[in-house]
Each structure stands twice: as C-alpha cells, then as structure tokens.
C-alpha cells in the first residue's frame, strides 16, 4: 500500500495556500504565504537566524502546524494525513538526534525495514549510498562516536535511503568538508533530475547556485517573492 501511495505522490507539487504561523500572540513569522514548490526543482530558503526558515521547514515536515492556511501535496492535506505524506518525504533536521547505540548501517536497515522497503538488494544500496556520501569505514561504529560531519552525512543518508519524492533539508551542508560537500551536491542534483522536489535552507546563497532554481528570502515578503522567481 505504501508503494502505491508513493507512486501516486510522485510528480506531485507541494502547494502552500495562505499559510500563516505565529508563536503565541507574537508577530506572524509567516503571513498568508502562498507558493508552489514543483517537482524537478530545488528551492533554497535563505535568510538570517530567526527569520522563519526553520519554522517553514518544520511546518513542511508536519513537525509544526500552521496557525491558518493549508499545504497540499497533490490532493493530500499534509497536516490532516501526516503519515501518508511522510511516506514520500525525507527530512534532514537542523539538529542531529540519532540513536547513539546503533551504527549508521543498522539505522538505515531499521528505517527500510520499518517502511517495508527492505529487500535482498538493500544491504548493497545502503553501502553504495554511504560510499557516495563518503562516510568511511566508521559506518560500522556506533553513532555516538561520530563527528558532526559524520552525523550530518548519516542524517542525509537517513533522508535519502527511502528514495523519497520530497526532500526537506535544514542546513544540509553544515559541518561537511569540501569533498563531502561536492559529493552531496552532486547527489542532490541527481535527485532533482530524477523528478525530486528539494527544499533546503541555508545561510549561504552563493554555494547553492549549481543546485537551486529558486530562492525564497526570509523574512518573507510575498510581493518580492514573486519578483525573485
């Protein structure tokens, strides 16, 4: 059933309809924001700290709910049916909160088995993905011993291993060395070309140019946004 939903959701755009979000009675961090993220595109959320990038990321990943408005993935309201939406989504959160006593390989196996995607090929797929991400032989060590760069690579692998249609990445290049950054960039470009929908947040616009087609600058201003695209 999951794969049927996944197939159905492929080629679906992610459409924000008048989405607003505020914390308590504070000012609106996002106000009546409408936008359509398309497949085969990569969009960067750019802006200073505290401008609302992570809030939008959290809303898109269903970890936060909007004050008003809705987000449609095809015909699916993502906040009404988070489980169905997450079938098609890979998330790289800003902070790593991975289990400390599993190895990267065991973690990825767990995720594939949990999502009923484990097959005879999966072991090789995991190793291939970790090879591309340049996570070395320490992939067999427990995650609690990883450096910040290795944690980030593991997070990216967690998001990609299920071959999602949508990828949401908060600061995906933070902590990566130059070679790993290039390898990850290539991987994401391939993801986009294969019908992927990528949304990422970053402080650095310049380094994203080979990858991103659209940029949304925070704090949000709906009028400028239209002009940017």
């Amino acid at each position: 059933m999951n794969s049927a939903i996944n197939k159905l959701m492929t080629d679906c755009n992610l459409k924000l309809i008048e989405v607003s979000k505020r914390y308590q009675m504070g000012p609106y961090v996002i106000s009546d924001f409408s936008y359509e993220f398309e497949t085969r595109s990569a969009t960067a959320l750019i802006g200073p700290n505290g401008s609302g990038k992570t809030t939008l990321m959290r809303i898109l990943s269903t970890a936060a709910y909007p004050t008003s408005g809705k987000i449609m993935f095809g015909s699916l309201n993502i906040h009404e049916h988070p489980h169905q939406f997450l079938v098609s989504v890979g998330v790289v959160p800003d902070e790593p909160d991975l289990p400390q006593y599993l190895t990267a390989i065991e973690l990825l196996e767990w995720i594939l088995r949990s999502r009923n995607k484990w097959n005879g090929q999966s072991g090789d797929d995991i190793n291939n993905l970790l090879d591309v991400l340049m996570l070395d032989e320490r992939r067999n060590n427990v995650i609690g011993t990883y450096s910040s760069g290795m944690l980030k690579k593991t997070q990216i692998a967690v998001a990609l291993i299920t071959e999602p249609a949508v990828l949401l990445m908060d600061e995906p290049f933070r902590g990566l060395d130059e070679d790993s950054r290039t390898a990850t960039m290539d991987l994401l470009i391939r993801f986009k070309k294969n019908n992927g929908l990528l949304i990422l947040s970053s402080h650095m616009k310049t380094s994203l140019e080979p990858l991103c087609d659209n940029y949304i600058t925070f704090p949000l201003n709906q009028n400028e946004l239209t002009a940017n695209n």
Partner: protein
Amino acid sequence: MYPLRKTKSATTIASSFFSFIIVIIYITTLIHNISLQDRFIILRYWELILTGFFAVIHPYLLFPEENMSLLQALNPSPNELIRYQLRNQRYTILGITVIFLIISFWDLHGWQHSILLKVQYFLSSLLFIVGLFSYSYRKYISIGNESQAYQEGIKGERIRKFRDETGQMAVPIGAIPTMQTTIVIGIVGMLAVVFGAYLSNRLQMNMEWIPGFLLLAAGILPFSKIRKVFDHFFYQTNAFYKEYFTSPFSGGLQHANDYPYESVYWVPVKWRASTWSGIVQLDRAYPLGRFILLGHLFLWILFYHGSSQLIINGYLLLFIIFHNINIYLLTTSVMGKQSWNYRLQSISNWIWSRFFIQIRWFLPLILSLTVVMIFSSRFTTYSLLSWSAIYILSSLISSIFFTYLYEFRYQQTYD
C-alpha cells in the same frame, strides 16, 4: 516498527527504582496486618492519588516526543504510533499494578485469606486505573488543535481580554485547554471513586468495577473513531507541546518574568544564582506546584476523613519524599549537562544550591501542617516539629545523593 526506546540516564533509573522501593516498603509495613475493609479503603485512596497523577502528568509523559525526526524517518502507521506511545508507558502501569497487588494480597494471615474478595477488589482497582488511563490518554492526545487555537489567538479572546485588563493570569493562554482537561479528569476520576464506594456500600457487594468499566468505555469507544487518523492527532498535539514547552517564543518566556533574581533573596549569596536558575528551569518545565497543592489537599482530606495515624504518617512520609523530585529533576541533562554543571561550581556548592531549591516548599508545608494542627487535636506541635525536621533532613540527604549520582560520578570518570 522495531522498539524505539527513550534513553534514560543512570540518575533516572536509580531514582525511579529508589522511589518505587520506598513506596513498596511503606505499603508493606502499612498493610501487612490490617482488616479487609481498611485494605479496600487504602486501594480507594490510591485511586484518588492516581487520579491526580493522571490528570496532570499525561502531557508531560507523552510530549514533546524526543525522537521526533527519527519517528519521521521510520514513519510508523497510526496503529504503530499508538502502540509506540502505549509501550513507553508500560512501566507506569506495571508499577501501579505491583502496588495494587501488594495492597490486595500482602497479608499477615496469608495472601489466600478471603481470596475471592481480594481478587475482586484488586481487579476493580486495576480496571479503574486502566479506564482512567484510557480516558485521560484519549483526552490529551486530541488536545493539540484546541490548544494551538488558544495559543495563537484564534480562540480565547475573552480570557485574553480579562488577562490584559486585570493582569491576574500567570498561566499562558495556550495552557487553558490543558488545565480544563486536568480539571475534568480530576473531577471525573474522583467522582468515579466515590460512586464505586457508594454503590458497594449501598448494595453490600463489590460494585467498584462499574466506574472503571465506564471510564474504560469513555476512553476506548471514542478512540476507535480516531484510530485511523491517529497520526494527525499525534503530530498536531506533539507540535503544540513542542512549541509550548521548548519554543523561546511560547509560554515559557512569560514565566521567566515571574521569577526575578531578587525573589530568592533568602538564599545565601554564594548559592543564590544557581538556586535561582534551578527554580526558573523547574517551574518552566514541570507543574510541580500543582502536584504539591494536590498533595496538601489530599492530606487535609485524610485528616477530615479521620484516617488512622499509620495512614497519615505513611502519607506524610511519602509526600515529603515526593518533594525531593525537585532535586532529581535538576540532575538530568535537560537542566544542565554534567560537564556544564561541573565547570560552573564545585560539588559541595551544588549540594547546597539543591538543598535551597528544595527548601522553597518548606514554608507551604509548615503552613499546611499548622492548619491541620489548628483543626485536629491528633496533630500536635511536637508532630509539626518532627515532620519539619524530617523534611529538612530528607532534603539534605537527597541533595547529597543525587549530586553524588550526577556531578560526583562525572568527576570520578573524567578527573
């Protein structure tokens, strides 16, 4: 989904075990030689205590989910999410079951003495707790939508206006649905205990399973409707509590203004800063004040009811030990990692800071016991002084004990 366990520190495990053992020792000394009737009354008291517990604690046990991004990666189905949340609470229910087993069957005359009656009351109490648990869980799991509406100004306009005009509400508006739910569960649970006792006395047979059964039905029947879309309720309620408990923009910020540094003027300067930061963190994170208030109310009920001296002494001992949860909560990494604490001040300074944090509940305790002393001839000045001494001593012991488990062990490992 494979079992996803919440990681627990050595302090958590040790203190939970320690507290549980104390409760068990207390219960076994209390009930080994009492009549059947008293045994059933004690079961009812425990039902009342646990009503208060489940009325308040559920959101704190369940939310915010600490493995959220991993859960997103695993993406469990609605049924698996339900199983996951229930599995994380199994030790709570297991602990309660053990307590009920001991109260029902730990008997000097042999556990098999009046066995049928004991089994009946044990099962009734267990049914009551399972029913209350289901009812409370059902209420809290679906609270996210309403709470967010209050928190973000969609609802609660009149309450907000009242607060702005009078300045008399310290509670964040987003907490209103949680408080309402706490009150409803508390009242329903207490009425259910009273109703069960009334029925049994009236009909001269054990009918205490009826309220438990009704609570279970009230919890499970509506649950069957939301089961298929449980993921929606889980994610939304988690999103609300995540913002409520941890976001710098949410309710927590308001609380910060409630505790100016000057309010701990009574603490010696040397330990004032860490005492103040500890109190601020504790009160933002946990509703301890509500628990302590419930504890005092229950103490007054015990006296009003004319409970035996043994029950009152036992309860006071447990209540005082419960106060020490303050210190345990402070020795967890969310309140300050060991390395941070260790560098901030010496181990002996942490012991004294925690002692003073604990001492802040001393005055309410003295006032409460003074009220009891005024209205009850059974509680004398000597009792008041004795319990005060026990409180101070237990505060000092638990400060030393938990600091030993936390900072001292860190020092042993890394220095």
